């Protein structure tokens, strides 16, 4: 590891000195500014500006800012971005200047222009690997359950990304559990990304500008999770004219309003969705008093104060609400808020200051009567961040900054409701944590063929009081009955602290115009765990921070990839192999009781994980027929050795006798085909087919009768697998005639699970309904029939 730090230092110094040296040789000027959508004024993330004569260029950062320092001269500039018409312009650069560039989207340009989905050879020349970036327009074309475009379900169609089953909450990246994904919405962490227990994600595609999933080669500015970062950015709102976008679907409808408050200066965006299944419940005699709906609201105000300063305020509020009359009510949801200030310090130096608030909470209970109570849980995360981009030269860009995060974890509280309630107040004690971080990273073009990206992140984590820590006999959290003392920590007093460096490095070696080899290494650390011991995560799972007994997790990932384009960049091929080692992962004891448990540390088992795989993708990005074929071959295992003390031997052999076992989300084969076909200006067809190995399962070793019940005897975890799953979804979109040019509307209809395959979600064992002493194996299919959908979408 020391070698890495030396290499990092040497590379960094070479980069800096090289840049300074070059600056002394020739007179140089800087072209800087923003690249935006010509129609809406939206900043474009990752748009590129390339100088044809030099072969050099720059890309906009996540705030849409670019900076390019080149020698004085007359140049041809090529500006391009995913789904936009490439713009070419020539002018003389004889002084530093600020230039805001505007690109037109595909539907804004004449049909004879070829609109490339991305810069033609981007996947060859760009250093980033293991990144999945999907345009919202693509996401909207992929057929999904009930026709509702879904960011997370769409990203699962990419290699290396899976889930435990249909309708499951969250997603798994390269063998990581779902809590190993840092999901950011306008930089605010989202702690539960699902509506309706996982059937839909909380991201409203109408409000989203950009979705990027980092599976590897994670830049040093991101930290806090082991396996991936999903960076979702909300749209800024149209600062040129008022517009509305919306849709009416079978499950929910959505409406987005946006426009200028002050033209070209201040814009707003309000986007809302609400499901209306509950409205139909009122027509049911048995369910008329029941509630079942969810909603979310995205808001944003963007203010271009002047050429150098911009301010953004955005928020997300979402809730799922269920109720059975007055017998039971349940709700959960996220609330996030982001305030950002972008400041151009100089034409090469960009600053972003962000303040973030994120709050995930749930509450459930009985509202009235003697059994009235409310059970609530919450996690609050506040964050302040300053990050800087320094465009030292076209060959070297630095990103650096500092971040501070503050957490309050409320694992659970019971409050009696009303004077009749039989309950007494109860609370699992809160936990508090601070997490300051520093990061620095560089992207450097070492030679025409070799690019490097390298960075370091250092995080120090503090778990602080006020807290009472149970002290166990022999110092190991064995069982509540073995608590021998309680240690009190005052407010702010340090309970535990952990820290460490997280080096990241990526390299791209361009073999020729059509192919390149890329490699990356990253170390990541995670200071909190989602405590969930069900097949799919539930809304009432809690997050447990590292502390006195629970240590942070750590992962090292190595990736090697080959990238090649065919047929004039119409086809892109990528093959990536990865190997990942994970340490201090959490698993659970048999029958662990995780909710409202004051000694939850006694239910946890710590182990190590390993995942390796090969990801293959061929992507057709041009023409009437576009889409991709993705295939992943992988294996993920965990090893939990258990522990024992002189007096406590209950988990001495860990899980499966301390031998490796397949994780719940291990899928050997995962094949996806996605195709979108433009028949003509009016009709579009799209479809996707998935095939994947069934997930691991545990079958009974035998059965026995105890107190009249037939009990299964489970011995070896995940030694079997449920059958494979496959599914075909199709949809068609028809553009309707509009009475005026401003209105664009269409109808999309299709079938999810076209041939009604009963894909097994699980195989489980239970007594027969007819005879409790007769046992049966049963297969549960979540979507066992073709599900038709129709959606009306509009924009004006």
């Amino acid at each position, binding site marked *: 590891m020391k070698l890495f730090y030396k290499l990092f230092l040497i590379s960094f110094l070479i980069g800096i000195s090289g840049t300074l040296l070059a600056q002394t040789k020739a007179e140089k000027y800087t072209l800087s500014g923003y690249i935006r959508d010509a129609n809406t004024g939206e900043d474009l993330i990752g748009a590129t500006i390339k100088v044809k004569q030099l072969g050099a260029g720059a890309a906009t950062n996540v705030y849409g800012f670019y900076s390019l320092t080149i020698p004085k001269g007359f140049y041809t500039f090529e500006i391009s971005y995913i789904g936009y018409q490439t713009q070419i312009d020539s002018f003389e650069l004889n002084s530093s200047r600020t230039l805001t560039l505007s690109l037109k989207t595909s539907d804004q340009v004449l049909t004879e222009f070829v609109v490339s989905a991305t810069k033609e050879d981007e996947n060859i020349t760009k250093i980033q690997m293991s990144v999945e970036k999907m345009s919202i327009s693509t996401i909207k074309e992929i057929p999904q359950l009930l026709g509702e475009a879904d960011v997370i379900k769409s990203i699962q169609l990419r290699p290396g990304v899976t889930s435990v089953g249909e309708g499951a909450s969250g997603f798994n990246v390269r063998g990581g559990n779902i809590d190993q994904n840092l999901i950011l919405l306008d930089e605010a962490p989202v702690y539960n990304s699902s509506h309706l227990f996982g059937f839909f994600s909380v991201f409203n595609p109408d409000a989203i500008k950009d979705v990027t999933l980092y599976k590897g080669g994670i830049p040093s500015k991101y930290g806090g999770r082991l396996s991936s970062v999903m960076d979702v950015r909300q749209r800024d709102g149209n600062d040129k004219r008022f517009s509305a976008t919306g849709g009416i679907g079978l499950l929910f409808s959505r409406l987005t309003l946006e426009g200028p408050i002050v033209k070209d200066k201040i814009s707003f965006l309000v986007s809302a969705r609400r499901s209306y299944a509950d409205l139909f419940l009122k027509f049911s005699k048995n369910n008329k008093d029941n509630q079942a709906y969810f909603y979310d609201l995205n808001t944003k105000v963007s203010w271009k104060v002047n050429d150098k300063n911009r301010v953004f305020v955005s928020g997300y509020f979402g809730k799922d609400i269920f109720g*059975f009359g007055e017998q039971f009510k349940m709700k959960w949801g996220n609330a996030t808020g982001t305030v950002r200030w972008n400041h151009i310090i100089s034409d090469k130096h960009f600053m972003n200051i962000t303040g973030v608030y994120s709050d995930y909470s749930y509450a459930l209970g009985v509202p009235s009567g003697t059994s009235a109570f409310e059970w609530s849980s919450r996690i609050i995360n506040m964050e302040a961040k300053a990050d800087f981009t320094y465009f030292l030269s076209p060959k070297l860009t630095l990103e650096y900054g500092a971040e501070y995060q503050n957490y309050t974890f409320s694992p659970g509280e019971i409050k009696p409701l009303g004077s009749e309630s039989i309950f007494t107040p109860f609370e699992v004690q809160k936990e508090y944590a601070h997490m300051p971080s520093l990061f620095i990273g560089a992207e450097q073009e070492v030679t025409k063929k070799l690019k490097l990206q390298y960075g370091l992140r250092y995080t120090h984590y503090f778990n602080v009081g006020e807290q009472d820590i149970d002290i166990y006999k022999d110092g190991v959290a064995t069982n509540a009955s073995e608590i021998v003392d309680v240690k009190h920590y005052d407010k702010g007093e340090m309970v535990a602290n952990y820290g460490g460096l997280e080096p990241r490095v990526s390299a791209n070696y361009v073999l020729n115009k059509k192919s390149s080899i890329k490699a990356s290494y990253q170390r990541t650390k995670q200071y909190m765990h989602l405590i969930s011991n*069900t097949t799919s995560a539930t809304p009432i799972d809690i997050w447990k921070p590292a502390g006195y007994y629970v240590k942070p997790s750590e992962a090292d990932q190595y990736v090697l990839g080959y990238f090649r384009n065919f047929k004039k960049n119409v086809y892109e091929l990528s093959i990536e192999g990865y190997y990942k080692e994970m340490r201090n992962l959490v698993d659970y004891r048999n029958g662990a009781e995780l909710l409202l448990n004051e000694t939850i540390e006694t239910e946890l088992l710590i182990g190590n994980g390993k995942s390796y795989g090969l990801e293959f993708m061929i992507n057709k990005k041009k023409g009437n027929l576009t889409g991709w074929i993705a295939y992943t071959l992988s294996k993920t295992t965990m090893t939990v050795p258990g522990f024992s003390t002189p007096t406590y031997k209950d988990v001495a052999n860990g899980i499966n006798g301390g031998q490796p076992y397949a994780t719940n989300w291990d899928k050997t084969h995962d094949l996806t085909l996605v195709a979108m076909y433009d028949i003509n200006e009016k009709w579009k067809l799209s479809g996707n087919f998935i095939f994947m190995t069934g997930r691991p399962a545990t079958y*009974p070793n*035998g059965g026995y009768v105890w107190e009249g019940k037939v009990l299964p*005897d489970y011995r070896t975890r995940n030694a079997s697998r449920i059958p494979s799953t496959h599914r075909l979804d199709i949809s068609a979109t028809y553009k309707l005639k509009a009475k005026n040019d401003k209105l664009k509307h269409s109808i999309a209809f299709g079938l999810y699970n076209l041939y009604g395959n009963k894909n097994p979600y699980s195989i*489980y064992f239970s007594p027969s309904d007819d005879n409790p002493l007769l046992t049966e194996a049963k297969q549960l299919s979540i979507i066992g029939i073709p599900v038709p959908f129709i959606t009306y979408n509009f924009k004006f």
Partner: protein
Amino acid sequence: MKLHIYIIAILSVFSISACTDVITLDLDDPEPVLVVDGFISNLDVIQSVRLSSLDNYFAPQPPEYSKYKSAVVTLQENGAYAGTYVFNDTELQFELPYQGLEGKEYQIHISLPDGTSYLSASELMESIVPIDTIWHELSEEDGPSADKGDFLVKINTLEPAGLGDNYQWKSYVNGQYNFAAEDIFVSDDRFVDGQDVIDFDVYSLDQEEFEEYKNESLTGQVFVTIEQTTISARYFDYILLVSQQLLQVGSPFASPPAEIRGNVYKEGEDEVLALGYFYTSSVDAATVELLEQ
């Protein structure tokens, strides 16, 4: 427990396209493992223990209880010999007339004909908490655990101050024990410590079941007996795991299959466990007749 029922019920609102099919699966026969099924209560009755063996999960039940009839099963009270169970060929169980006492610790010792022996971990018989009142009502609305018109059996009781009490409620209809997994009902006292527990739903019976019991009864009456039992913390964990492994299965929110570890160990090899559990149970019972209104 009810929480999971609620969540599954919520999910079912949207699971119109979900389906469950019985499938054929071939499972290997397991190695035979001793199964112990018994408890001792504070009631002055014949205490019983059943011994059987692990079988193929899909094997026809009930098990062959007479397989271990020549085993020697003894009861120990506070570590001292208290009596020997005798195998009853009619009931297919080992029996011992004995009344357990609160505050005493109990365990059984089993000697098998093959020379191996097993000993259960000692269990304390906790003090009993009486049922103050029992009555029934008809459910006024539909809900996840009872439909409108179902009989709800309720009790009032007092939960003594001081954490650490664990309870199980067993229900009997016209003397028949409701042994199904759905009828496992346990709770600890974390949320009701020291409270008057009033209007507490402990059992529900729908109208169809009521009619069946009524028709089967010689008198046309339906009586529900509730046993409020105090159990050890270890047995509480065990019965909770049994319930979890039988009820919370299959759904997306199912608990993973887990080994149900009991409290009967092979002597000389502590890491080898028999299956099943031998527990103590302090019981207070109350009966109510269900009347149509």
